[in-house]
């Protein structure tokens, strides 16, 4: 499916109560594979009937992280791979994206954006929309989380 590996589903538990899905897969570093991966994760979130606001935040941040991995981490090389992991539940969404590059600058301030520059908004949006963002190792592995315990209050993103 457009350079997307067959997903490994780790667990689906108690569909009426603490339902969650954990999915791991890899994609070729290609734009079509990025689009397919985002669509697949969105479908999984919709099947779990997760909050619309969370689905919108997670969809955009996953797409931004995958595009960063493709263009910047893997330099658009279709021979390279992007690994994706998702834990999806009504209590927590955790998204992992790992490329084969040398990583993002871990200590850069992503809390502001150059409003006039046509690029550089991906990581800014991720930091604005997710509750927690971590870069592992040299920064080639980004972990983005939404947590039910966080008060999203008036910051709701999707209408």
């Amino acid at each position, binding site marked *: 499916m457009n350079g997307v590996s067959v997903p490994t589903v780790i667990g689906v538990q108690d569909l009426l109560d603490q339902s969650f899905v954990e999915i791991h897969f890899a994609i070729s570093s290609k734009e079509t594979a990025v689009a397919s991966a985002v669509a697949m994760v969105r479908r999984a979130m919709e099947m779990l009937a997760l909050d619309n606001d969370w689905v919108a935040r997670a969809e955009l941040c996953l797409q931004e992280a995958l595009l960063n991995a493709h263009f910047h981490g893997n330099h658009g090389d279709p021979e390279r791979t992007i690994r994706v992991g998702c834990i999806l539940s009504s209590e927590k969404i955790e998204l992992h994206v790992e490329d084969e590059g040398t990583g993002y600058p871990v200590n850069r301030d992503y809390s502001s954006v150059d409003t006039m520059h046509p690029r550089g*908004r*991906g990581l800014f949006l991720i930091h604005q929309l997710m509750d927690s963002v971590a870069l592992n190792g040299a920064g080639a592995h980004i972990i983005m989380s939404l947590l039910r315990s966080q008060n999203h209050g008036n910051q709701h993103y999707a209408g």
Partner: protein
Amino acid sequence: MEINIMQADNNTTIALKGRFDFQTHQEFRRTVDGLLRSGKATLTVDLSQVDFIDSSALGLLLLARESCEKAGGGVILNQPKDYVDKVLKLCHFDQLFQVQR
């Protein structure tokens, strides 16, 4: 994404439908460049049927704004849906563009 161009009096509108993101980069740029070549320097981008916008699309809007301003016009954003409007505000696009709501 679907792109339609509408002309009414002196107003040129680019109506977008669907996902406005990295996959529409070339088509959107071609559309804007074509309109600029035909002398249309003020463009309204109708976002009322756009369901999803990403940072690539925001970059495209900035590039379109820059090109139109160089030609003596500008870009107006029309009726973004709630979801899209929040991304625009988050990135301070409401300060860079005229946004008709």
